[in-house]
């Protein structure tokens, strides 16, 4: 379980729970297959996340991380380990922030390299 980020939704995924906009209006019900058009509507109405059948947030995050250069990722994690040394690393909020920070760092690094070419 665990709702996944709007950025990680793909057409063809089946909703496990209804998707609501920020005022609580239902945009799409459980059991429905997400289409390209739905995704656009979700974004327009400020949807953050959705609960999708058979897809875990942890697995999606891990898959996204696997696409990054492992050496750069390791370097970023080491750097951020030091910056995060006063935080509670067992706290899911801190874990999410750590993941965001390291992924952002590696992406910036990779983009920087591309621009340099």
């Amino acid at each position, binding site marked *: 379980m665990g709702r996944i980020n709007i950025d990680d939704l793909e057409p063809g995924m089946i909703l496990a729970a209804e998707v609501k906009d920020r005022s609580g209006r239902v945009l799409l019900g459980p059991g429905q297959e997400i289409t390209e058009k739905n995704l656009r509507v979700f974004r327009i109405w400020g949807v953050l996340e959705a609960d999708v059948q058979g897809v875990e947030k942890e697995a999606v995050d891990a898959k996204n991380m696997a696409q990054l250069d492992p050496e750069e990722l390791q370097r970023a994690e080491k750097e951020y380990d030091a910056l995060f040394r006063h935080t509670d690393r067992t706290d899911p*909020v801190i874990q999410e922030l750590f993941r*965001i920070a390291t992924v952002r760092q590696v992406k910036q690094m990779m983009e920087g390299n591309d621009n340099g070419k």
Partner: protein
Amino acid sequence: MANSPHDLLKGYVEISSLPMIYTQINEAINNPRKSLADIARIVSEDSGLSARLLRIVNSAFYNFPTHIETVSRAVAIVGIQELRALAILTSVMQLFKGIPSHLVNMESFWRHSVACGLSAKLLATYRRETNVELFFTAGILHDLGRLIMFQKEPERALEAIMRAREENKLLYIAEREVFGYDHAAVGRVLVQSWKLPPRVEEVVAFHHSPVSASRFPVETSIVHVADVVTHVMRLGNSGESCVPPLDRKGWDSLGLSLNVLTLIVEQVERQYNDSINSMIAGENE
């Protein structure tokens, strides 16, 4: 040696009140008889604020198709709430000049302050808070007490910085050990003397311990989380080199989903890149 934040500020007349420009704008905004044109006239009389305002409305942040030339147009575009926040930013940047660079890099300090303000404003927007500019203001002011410590007691401030570094401590903890109080307590007294809203005062006072905020815990938690996010993103620096601990109760009180963080970081990044130069340029004018 000042034994309390009050002692530290005593007799420090230069910063005991906000510059006239802020007071004038604030009075005009609160006076129902004054029009937008009156407010624009007051802004025009302050070259620093006019220049900053025009830079900001012409930045990528607003992304306007045409160049905005006049202060009255600019005021109409940003609105009076944001104008008030910008007047505070301009005022504090004028007030705190000439702090030795071995204590703090002022550009980095303002970068951190503005980034925290943007993050707080976005978090407030997600929570559908009203008057989101108040969060921008509180973000700008949250670490200001530290500048007073640097200015009034540079030796002890340096001692706190060294202690934090050598003993692997958070700077605000080292401040408490060296001074007996931290920058948040100093900031609180400063904001009090400026007669800013009590909400801002409480946010500044408790931004490291939002559960201690008795009247405005949600506002305080928003800026607390914004401060953590800003440290995670490493946008500027106000003296603290590490990510400060997150108060879990403060986060829980906001009722936000974990997935909001990715979006906040993306949006802060974009807004920061689009606006930071126009916000903090002119620091040495």
